[in-house]
């Protein structure tokens, strides 16, 4: 009911108290100094960061924060002095924001993410990952088949800018040069090319991820379409007897890049599944829970895309031996696989929880 009576008895009566003072005004008089001290400390942290305070001041601030919270709770009940309640509201929320602030260092955060955050998230997403891989492989198979049936499908799938001159009508020798010459771009502009590829691929991956929120379907459709394109592309080269070479050409970066796209698709699928089947949770709550892993999947996809763009833009134009291309590409794939399956396992840890 009333404020803590103990303090009222102990507190020396101030000059104002000796006169007839409202109960709520007395409540305020007794505590105002505490609040103002908290106000000062909070203002210092707001301006100069938590390091501005020494040990004792920090301890005082936390104690004063708790007191102010109690005062706020009491004041809401007993006081009709609006200025007082408003002041306490804002003081408490400011102090709350200062005291409950992020405490992680940036370096430790990155290390933790790489060591177990990302690998664990991937291991919890096995089902969406498999589904995304299936969509991609299905796309490749369908693309390959359609091309074998009718070559004109190629023009339907592959956008002009990407095909350059690599069309079914081109000669085998020309196609060979596209695989082994330093591409249409000279060495000076390799960096430009890599940058272009990076932003292009990133946009596709982001799209695949983001559209997943619409019931996961667009993610799979886009991944399937990516596979379709790849299948037709491969079929065209295979048609001219360049199957092995094009696999090498694609592998060097493609293993990493396509995995990144599949991972982005799995991330999108997890968001989509949250919207589609929230279970006992509200959709918002389900989205929030799935978001934890989805975010990590996206970070991983981003990392892999940067790596792939570097390989594609720089290394592929320098390394022409198909065996080395294969070894490098699948070696990277093995590296990702090992990292994602082995890292961040605690000794006692049981297998990751079910994917969804």
């Amino acid at each position: 009911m009333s404020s803590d009576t103990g303090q009222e008895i102990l507190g020396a009566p101030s000059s104002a108290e000796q006169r007839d003072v409202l109960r709520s005004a007395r409540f305020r008089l007794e505590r105002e100094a505490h609040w103002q001290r908290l106000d000062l400390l909070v203002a210092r942290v707001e301006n100069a960061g938590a390091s501005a305070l020494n040990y004792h001041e920090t301890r005082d601030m936390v104690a004063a924060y708790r007191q102010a919270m109690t005062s706020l709770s009491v004041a809401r009940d007993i006081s009709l002095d609006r200025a007082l309640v408003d002041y306490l509201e804002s003081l408490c929320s400011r102090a709350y924001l200062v005291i409950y602030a992020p405490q992680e260092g940036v370096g430790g955060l990155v290390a933790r993410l790489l060591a177990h955050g990302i690998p664990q998230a991937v291991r919890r997403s096995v089902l969406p990952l498999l589904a995304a891989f299936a969509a991609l492989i299905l796309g490749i198979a369908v693309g390959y088949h359609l091309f074998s049936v009718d070559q004109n499908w190629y023009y339907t799938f592959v956008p002009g800018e990407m095909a350059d001159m690599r069309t079914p009508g081109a000669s085998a020798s020309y196609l060979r040069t596209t695989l082994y010459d330093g591409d249409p771009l000279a060495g000076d502009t390799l960096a430009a090319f890599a940058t272009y590829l990076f932003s292009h691929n990133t946009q596709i991956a982001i799209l695949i991820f983001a559209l997943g929120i619409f019931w996961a379907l667009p993610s799979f459709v886009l991944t399937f379409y990516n596979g379709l394109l790849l299948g037709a592309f491969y079929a065209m080269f295979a048609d001219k007897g360049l199957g092995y070479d094009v696999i090498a050409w694609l592998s060097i970066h493609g293993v990493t890049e396509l995995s990144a796209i599949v991972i982005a698709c799995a991330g999108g699928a997890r968001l989509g599944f949250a919207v589609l089947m929230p279970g006992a949770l509200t959709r918002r709550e389900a989205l929030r829970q799935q978001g934890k892993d989805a975010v990590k999947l996206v970070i991983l996809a981003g990392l892999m895309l940067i790596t792939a763009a570097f390989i594609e833009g720089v290394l592929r134009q320098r390394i022409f031996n198909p065996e080395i291309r294969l070894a490098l590409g699948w070696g990277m794939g093995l590296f990702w696989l090992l990292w994602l399956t082995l890292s961040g396992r605690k000794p006692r840890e049981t297998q990751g929880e079910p994917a969804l």
Partner: protein
Amino acid sequence: MSKPDPDDKRILEIVPPEGVAIRFRIASLGARFGAQFLDMLLTGVIVGVVIFVLASTALFESEAASVLAVLLTFLLRIPYYILTELVWNGRTPGKRGAGIRVINMYGQRLTPHQIVARNLMKEVEFFTPLSMLSTAQGMSGWGKAVTLVLVFGVAIVPFANRRRQRLGDMIAGTVVVENPRMQLLPDLALSAASEASQQAFAFQPAHLNVYGRFELQTLEDLLRDPQKAGSAAEIRKITSTITRKIAYDGLVRPGEELVFLNAFYRAQREHLEKLRLFGTKREDKFQREESL
């Protein structure tokens, strides 16, 4: 400065671990766009300066510099928002400028995961649609359709929910609110005017049973800034209304209106606070004798 109504749609109540609910005012979308614009301006300037320095050292040709610009904008963008929100507790420089900040809507501290999530989604929700719109000219019919769906899909979300959260905020569990900032105003019941008025007027319990909390606090606003409330004539009118409504039988001489209002404020507050202590909360003049 007016107190936000608890039922106000723009107020978010969160409960920190201490168990006392505190209120934040949800930031307007205008302020958020302003903050976003400032941030884009700032990152743009940073990239521009870096490019200019590199170009002026003549280490790079102009073409390489343009490549670098594209790469830098991309690599700077996400980390800029994540790091600034992490270091300054939910405030990018643009948000500081606009007086808004990100908070955890569950009353805990802001976690790095939340900051990363909402800013990754910013890439999805804001920058990708933006760049797709700028290149929509050359797209096929399907591309245009996808662009349209994406742009509308993400743009409508913040308008469609009460907390003005965008998708990233929902996934991360964050809300953007206004920075709390306020001064401690003196207690009217302790002011000199109140002291002086105490003897001049006496009120009977019947006088004080008319008005409730709302009217009291409206009177408080008036007394804190009588100039703003209007001319002496208006104050005179308010005073006569009050005396009529409460059936005050004493005489208020011309020129003494403010003294009277101060005395009435004090007496009314004392009375209502006393009622509160015994469990009767009278919110306004329409509510009578309701024990809660």
